[in-house]
């Protein structure tokens, strides 16, 4: 079968599991799941050659809803798990799913070092600027004036800027998507997965239950006015000065991915022991 035939043979439905999502109706994560399955079908990679790794939170439920291999891991540690998997099984397509709480707070340090290490992973963060699963606490990307019973008077804290941090830390591909555009998101995910090294895709994914105001995002998003650059300084300037709703690929770097030779994954523990004895 040619690669084109393989692509035609893969349908988005092949990547969906029988488990029905339990997200709130209206949640942006439904669209993200759709974008995942459409992207995988477009790539033509069979489900058993893809691993979807996640941490904890609404967005991190996503591996269970796909038919790919998956790991619903520890809070904030999805990147550590995924890095270990990719290093030992470079043949797999490894996609990491997280949210703004899991990825930028609990997993914030892993985020920096995953960007720096530049392993060939695709890191998707569904950003709704809130901890949804635990009933609406402010997250690192929540606006300072977010005033609720859980953050009286607002947080007063400057929000985290994930794209700038990813760029400064060495991510090799940076994009921003909007969940309400699943086909466009799927196309960007395909490019992110194809791009060598650490690809970071932030998806603005409204939480309609705890942030009903985010339903309005569909009226705020707009395509990035210029094509992606490979110049980090230029990318930094663009990302720092945009309104947070520019959608598209913003940066494509050309750093060589980190892929240490771990001697293959034979599964033979005695070989591993020998390495420690050296």
């Amino acid at each position, binding site marked *: 079968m040619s690669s084109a035939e393989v692509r035609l043979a893969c349908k988005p439905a092949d990547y969906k599991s029988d488990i029905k999502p339990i997200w709130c109706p*209206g949640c942006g994560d439904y669209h993200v799941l759709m974008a995942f399955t459409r992207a995988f079908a477009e790539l033509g990679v069979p489900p058993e050659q893809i691993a979807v790794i996640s941490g904890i939170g609404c967005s991190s439920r996503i591996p269970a809803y796909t038919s790919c291999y998956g790991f619903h891991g520890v809070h904030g540690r999805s990147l550590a798990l995924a890095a270990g998997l990719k290093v030992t099984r470079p043949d797999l397509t490894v996609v990491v799913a997280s949210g703004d709480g899991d990825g930028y707070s609990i997993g914030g340090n892993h985020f920096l070092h995953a960007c720096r290490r530049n392993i060939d992973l695709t890191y998707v963060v569904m950003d709704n600027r809130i901890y949804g699963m635990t009933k609406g606490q402010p997250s690192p990307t929540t606006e300072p004036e977010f005033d609720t019973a859980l953050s009286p008077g607002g947080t007063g804290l400057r929000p985290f800027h994930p794209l700038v941090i990813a760029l400064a830390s060495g991510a090799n591909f940076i994009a921003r998507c909007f969940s309400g555009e699943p086909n466009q998101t799927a196309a960007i995910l395909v490019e992110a997965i194809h791009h060598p090294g650490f690809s970071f895709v932030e998806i603005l994914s409204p939480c309609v239950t705890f942030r009903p105001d985010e339903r309005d995002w569909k009226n705020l998003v707009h395509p990035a006015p210029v094509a992606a650059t490979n110049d980090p300084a230029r990318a930094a300037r663009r990302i720092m000065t945009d309104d947070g709703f520019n959608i598209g690929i913003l940066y494509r770097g050309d750093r060589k991915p980190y892929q240490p030779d771990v001697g293959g994954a034979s599964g033979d523990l005695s070989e591993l022991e020998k390495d420690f004895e050296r």
Partner: protein
Amino acid sequence: MSSSTGAPRIFSLADLFAVAYRIEADAVERYNMLADQMETHNNPELVQVFRDLSRAEGIHAEEIRRMAGDIDVIAHGQGMARWSRGESPEEADLASAHYLMTPWHALQLALAGEKRALAFFTSIAETAKEPKIKKMAEEFMEEEAEHVNLVHRLLRKYPVPSKSWAQDSDPPVSQE
């Protein structure tokens, strides 16, 4: 987002049938997805409405397949591009779903979808140069116009919900 732009290009009658079929098939999947969501969130009335809409779209899809004759609409469609922006016209807007939504809201979603499909086929009928494509696009346009009328008739059965329709006496969040 469910605005339909970046539509696949139609170069042949087979393209038109394949896209028309896919529009209906996408709608079947989307309404089933919404029915599943309502099932999870215990809104049985809406489960029924979305399943009924899904069934209706399935009948339309089968009609298109029959009309296409020897053209394998599924195989042909797999080789064609999807909507590059927005979604397929009859994919109801997922972002507008709410666990307390009423049949009126569901039918509003359906109406919006039928209107987008009508606009899509109208634009093909108006711009196609190939007479066979033009004629068939006009046929689909008439079908969609009928569907718009049908949803309008169905909407008469359901009153506009009160302003407090989304108020939950036992809400999932207490931030007050």
